Structures are given as structure tokens and as C-alpha cells.
């Protein structure tokens, strides 16, 4: 018989190895799945994980990597801080949508004025919208003890309805011939979030994501608040005796992740998406949860996790075009990767020992 023995430390080697193992296991299972569905497994895996980087059309797809990874990394950075403290913000998707709406509202109100201040004002508004949407579950938990998991999730559905209402109602493009959806902000110079260095995919959202990575890294390793967050996650009671106020942490973590998700939504609406539509929510908020875990809730890991998830998005797009693979495979892959990662995590927390017969 085998038995599990809790480790007192978690060896660095396993911390690095488990995400790699999870990716390999996902590829193998994915290949099996493709085989069963009647596709060429090797071609499918190569198309998703290799071609976007080194394939024939890599010069087009490589910049897309940063376009997709930017919002994922930005959102995941905020989520990871909360997860570290045991505060489960599952509603980043809603905060992303609301940030997109409030940010777009500033641009639509200013239209057609031009000015250097418009995009910065939109960024502030986007962060504010996400922050407000994140503070709702925070306050309801602090005041009434309502689960932040369920409240933040319910607010995703509410935010989706708000986006639909905006697209069909108040924000509908008056020159859109009755079509739902707002004006295209990408075509409004002062409000657009363009590619900064041509051919790289870097836009302001990617810059913000890079800053968030550095900021969260400093917060978690150098700042007293980061220490409190880690303490609260590992030993809540001890943290309380040490003077950490749980309600302040809840508000801080949900507010921070809400603001970052809101900014991600704003950068998306002003750039790649261009407009508020009834399907503005693209699932980034949920995928970012996977990114946070893949990155082991560490900023550097999150960068790698975000790039990997972005790769599956782009590879999935290519596989859809070339192999007629349904795009939903990407979602299956992402879910599977999280399963494997959580499972392999056993190796970082426990030692597997053969039980000695008595």
C-alpha cells in the first residue's frame, strides 16, 4: 500500500514540474480525444501548440499572443492576490464587462471631441467600474456574511444583461442603422487603444498587464499588506491575533481584482473588441482563474500561464480554420489543464511513501 505524508515545505522542483506535467498530460489526453473524434491527433496538437509560434503563418499569429495574454494576465494578477488570502472572486468576468461599459461610456459621452485626456479618463472609469462591481460582493460579505463566491458569480449574469441592455438601448450606435452594439471605439482616434509597436501586438492593455505583474510582485513580497494576505490565507486565526482585519482584506482583494478586471475590459472595448455588444463578455474572466492557478498564484508564473492560455486560444482558432476542429475544444483543454494541475499538485504538498507492513 501507498500512503501520503504531508510535507512541511513544498520543494521548488515540484512547484515548477507540476504545471509542465499538467500541460503534457493535457496534450496526451487531448490527442486521445482528437483520435476518438476522428482527427489526426498529432496534427491537431501541433496546430494548437506549435503552429501559432513557429508555423507558416506565425508572423501573423505571434503578435496575437500578447493581445490575448494581456487581459488574461491583468485579470489573473488581481485574482491571485485574493486567492492567496482565501478570498474567492469568481466573478471577474462580470467586473471585466462592467469595466468595459463604464470605460466606453466616457468615450461615448465625449464623442466626437478629440483630446489626449480621453483614453486616460476611460482607463480610470474602466478600473472604477470593475472596482465597484467587485466591491458589491466584498461589502455584502463584510456586512452580512454573504458568500463572495456566489454573489460575485451572480453578478456575472447581471453584468451580461447590463451589456445586452446597453447594446440594444442607451449605448446603441445612432448611426448603426438599428443594429445592436455601440459605436466602434477603435475608429475613434482619441478613444482607441491601438497597437503601440507595429507587429508586436503590444497595446496599452499589455503595458498595464506588465505593470500589474511588477506591482503584485512588489505587493506580495515586499509590502506589509502582502504579508497580511499570505498570513490570512495560511493561518486565518493567527492572522487575526496579529491584528489583520479580515474585512479590510476582503475589501482590498475584491476591490483590487475588480479594478484590474475592469481595466482589462476597458482595454478590450477600446481595442480588439472595439464596441459594446450583447456578447461582450468573452470568458476571459473565467480563463484568468485557470491562469492564476497555472501560475501558482505567483506573478511570474501568471505571465507564463497567460501566454500558454493565449496560445491555446490562437491555436484553437487556427485548428478551427485548417482542421475544422470546433472552437469548444479550447475550452475543454483549459478545463482539463486545471484538473491535471490541481491533481498533480498533490506532489508538492505530500510525499508518497510505501507503507511498511507491521
Amino acid at each position, binding site marked *: 500500500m501507498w500512503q501520503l505524508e504531508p510535507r512541511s515545505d513544498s520543494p521548488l522542483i515540484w512547484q515548477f514540474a507540476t504545471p509542465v506535467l499538467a500541460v503534457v498530460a493535457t496534450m496526451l489526453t487531448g490527442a486521445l480525444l482528437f483520435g476518438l473524434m476522428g482527427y489526426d491527433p498529432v496534427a491537431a496538437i501541433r496546430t494548437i501548440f506549435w503552429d501559432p509560434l513557429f508555423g507558416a503563418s506565425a508572423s501573423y499569429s505571434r503578435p496575437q499572443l500578447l493581445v490575448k495574454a494581456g487581459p488574461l494576465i491583468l485579470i489573473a494578477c488581481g485574482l491571485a492576490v485574493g486567492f492567496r488570502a482565501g478570498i474567492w472572486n469568481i466573478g471577474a468576468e462580470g467586473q471585466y464587462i462592467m469595466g468595459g461599459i463604464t470605460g466606453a461610456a466616457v468615450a461615448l459621452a465625449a464623442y466626437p471631441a478629440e483630446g489626449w485626456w480621453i483614453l486616460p479618463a476611460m482607463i480610470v472609469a474602466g478600473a472604477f467600474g470593475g472596482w465597484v462591481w467587485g466591491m458589491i460582493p466584498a461589502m455584502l460579505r463584510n456586512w452580512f456574511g454573504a*458568500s463572495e463566491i*456566489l454573489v460575485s458569480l451572480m453578478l456575472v449574469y447581471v453584468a451580461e444583461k447590463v451589456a445586452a441592455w446597453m447594446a440594444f438601448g442607451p449605448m446603441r450606435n445612432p448611426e448603426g442603422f438599428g443594429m445592436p452594439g455601440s459605436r466602434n471605439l477603435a475608429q475613434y482616434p482619441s478613444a482607441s487603444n491601438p497597437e503601440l509597436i507595429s507587429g508586436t501586438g503590444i497595446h496599452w492593455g499589455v503595458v498595464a498587464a506588465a505593470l500589474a505583474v511588477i506591482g503584485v510582485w512588489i505587493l506580495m513580497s515586499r509590502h506589509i499588506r502582502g504579508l497580511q494576505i499570505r498570513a490570512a490565507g495560511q493561518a486565518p486565526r493567527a492572522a487575526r491575533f496579529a491584528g489583520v482585519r479580515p474585512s479590510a482584506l476582503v475589501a482590498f482583494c475584491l476591490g483590487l481584482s475588480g479594478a484590474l478586471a475592469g481595466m482589462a475590459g476597458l482595454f478590450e472595448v477600446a481595442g480588439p473588441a472595439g464596441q459594446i455588444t450583447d456578447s461582450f463578455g468573452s470568458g476571459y474572466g473565467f480563463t484568468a482563474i485557470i491562469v492564476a492557478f497555472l501560475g501558482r498564484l505567483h506573478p511570474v508564473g501568471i505571465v507564463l500561464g497567460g501566454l500558454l492560455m493565449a496560445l491555446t486560444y490562437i491555436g484553437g482558432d487556427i485548428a478551427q480554420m485548417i482542421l475544422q476542429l470546433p472552437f469548444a475544444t479550447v475550452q475543454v483543454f483549459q478545463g482539463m489543464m486545471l484538473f491535471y494541475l490541481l491533481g498533480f499538485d498533490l506532489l508538492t504538498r505530500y510525499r508518497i511513501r510505501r507503507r511498511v507492513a507491521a
Partner: protein
Amino acid sequence: MIDITTLIMTILSASTPLLFAALGELMAERAGVLNLGVEGMMITGALAGFAAAHATGNPLLGFVAAALAGAAISMIFGVLTQFLLTNQVATGLALTLFGLGLTALFGKPYEGVKAPSMAAGPLGLHWIIWLGLLMVPLSWWFLNRTRGGLILRGIGENHDAAHALGHKVRLVRLAAVAFGGAMAGIGGAYISIATVLQWTEGMTAGAGWIALALVVFSGWRAFGVMAGAWLFGGVTVMQLRLQAAGVNLPVQLLAMAPYLATIIALVVISARRRGSAAPGSLGRIFHTTN
């Protein structure tokens, strides 16, 4: 004048998916397992049930298939949390994401296909509605009047003590999770086979999450789950009726009603109980070295 009988029937119908999913989750949570994968299990049941009903032409077989599929997919969660000791929140979430993706992938051929129709049961209510109503006293009876229920609750309250008494914590929890999966599967299939009568991607639209909130709302009690399900069924029906009546409010705002009602209910209940009714070991990892 609103016809009271029709109103009651519509509310019962609207509450059935929530009732099944929430009763199943109730059982898992009383055993100490928090499974956030309800939405994923429901959508799996919705597709598996629809596919089986379509293939056999028999909706009842569809529900059987849905229960099996729900239980099967719940076992990913069960094995990960009970044997690989993973975090229940993260694993449940992964199950939902995985279920939504898997059904989107395999559901494509069923888009635009009609479900086979099924004769109504007694009083013009679908058989599954009756089954759901029956499951409420049965769940109550099992939890409060049987030895198995006592063991299950004991494990949920304090898994270390139950283990010391010689109870099989992991096996009981695995069974409770499987039951939860089967019930969520039936709930999902009710949406695809009995009400909407077709398959669309993501058609459970958050019902699984509302079911999770219902368990909190109920104070972890079977009859409380039923009351909650009716309340939310009522809100859903009301919202649809207001839409149909052409109330001077945008449709999208009316459609928020069930989600807002869930939040309000959570707040009211949490403020009153402060979570004291939750099973003592809920969400905690069980691990023993012997």
C-alpha cells in the same frame, strides 16, 4: 385574471431543475463536500439526456442517461478532491468550466434538433416534476430518519470524529457527490427535454449557481430547498410574464431578476444565520495518515 392553476403549474415547472440540482448538492454538502461544479454537471445532463432521448425517442431513457452522465462527470471532482486532496472550490470550478466546454464540443450536431415529446403525468404535470416533489420528503427522511443519513451527517459535521468511529469518510463522500451529480444531471435534462425542447450551448444559464445559493438559503434542509426552489421558480415566471405583458422596462433588465433575487436571498439569509447552519467540515480536505 390570472388562472391560479396554470400559474402554480408554471412555477412548479420552472422550479424543477433548481429543485433537483439543489437537493443533490444538499446531500453532498451535508456530507461535507462543497461542489461548485453543479452548473457543469447540469449542462452535461442537459446534453446527455437530450442526445439519449433523441436517439431512442424515449424521453424517460433520456433522464436515465442524464443521471448517469451527471454522476459520471461528478466522479472527476470526487476522485480529485477525495483521493488527490485538491481544493474543493478550485476543483468544482474546473468541473463547471470543463462541463461547459465538453458539451459545447459534443453538442454541435444536436443544434436545431427537436426533442421527442412526452405524455404529461397526473394533473397535467410532467412525471419528472412529480419525481422532484417526491425526492424532497425522501431526502428529508434519509437524512434525518435513517442510519445512513446519520453517518452522512456525522461525516459532514466532523470527518475526523467519524473516521475515528470507523466510518468510510471518502466512500460516503464519493457516493454523496455521485448522487449530487445524478440529480444535477436530471435537473439539466429537464430543461433540455421537458421545457425548452431543444439543445443550445450553455442553456442552463446559471441555474447550477442558483441551486448552490438555494442550499445556503435552505439552511441545509430538504424542505427549505423546496421552498427556495418555488420562490425562484416564481421570480422566473413573474419575470417572463412581465416581459410578455410588455411592461415598460427593457427585457434585459427584467431578465436580471432571478440573479438579483438570488443575491438578495443570500444576503437576508446570511445576515440572519451568519453561516452557523453549515456542516462543520464543509469544504475541508480530509486526510489521515492511517
